[in-house]
């Protein structure tokens, strides 16, 4: 079963622009996590937001969570070519994590 569904499936932007990815989930969560995957590599954890939090920042990353709408968004500000990757949300926070299909982000220099 899919816990998170990312939207859009693919996103192409110019370097310097902001990138926004959305995640909708079905069941209640303890926390929601975002991961990045560079092509052909394993996933890397980016940021975790707990169910009682509404917004969290980490460097150029900003994550929001709306538990009433069962949705989260990941904003990458001032994007760089190195941000080109697939981004996944995952929940529900207790073992085991279930991932969506991801958003493929392409940042064009």
């Amino acid at each position: 079963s899919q816990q998170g569904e990312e939207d859009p499936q693919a996103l192409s932007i110019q370097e310097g622009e902001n990138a926004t990815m959305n995640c909708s989930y079905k069941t209640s969560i303890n926390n929601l996590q975002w991961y990045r995957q560079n092509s052909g590599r394993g996933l890397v954890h980016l940021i975790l937001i707990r169910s009682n939090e509404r917004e969290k920042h980490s460097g150029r990353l900003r994550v929001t969570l709306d538990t009433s709408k069962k949705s989260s968004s990941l904003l990458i500000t001032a994007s760089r070519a190195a941000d080109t990757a697939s981004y996944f949300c995952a929940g529900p926070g207790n073992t085991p994590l279930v991932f969506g299909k991801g958003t493929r982000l392409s940042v064009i220099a």
Partner: protein
Amino acid sequence: SQTIHQWPATLVQPVGSPLSLECTVEGTSNPNLYWYRQAAGRGLQLLFYSVGIGQISSEVPQNLSASRPQDRQFILSSKKLLLSDSGFYLCAWTSGASGANVLTFGAGSRLTVL
């Protein structure tokens, strides 16, 4: 510091042949261990997870199996591979202690079944 090793990195196998992918974690004890598969265009699919030696939970019925013979070793196997088993296999671990369960992934094993 903790590290996770996964091998082989790439594998090309004929249909009907056996499979063994190995994953080991260093620098921690009693981790929770996971096998995920990523098929082209289908996202990440949880296959197996283990919270201790000999304890395996299967999420998807198929011709794959997993074993945990040692605390920090997780093995994915098949007796006879199918074409549909092709994909990118990822091992991951989390701390066995209660917490947020942030996953740390290995570099992955790309399997092509011909």
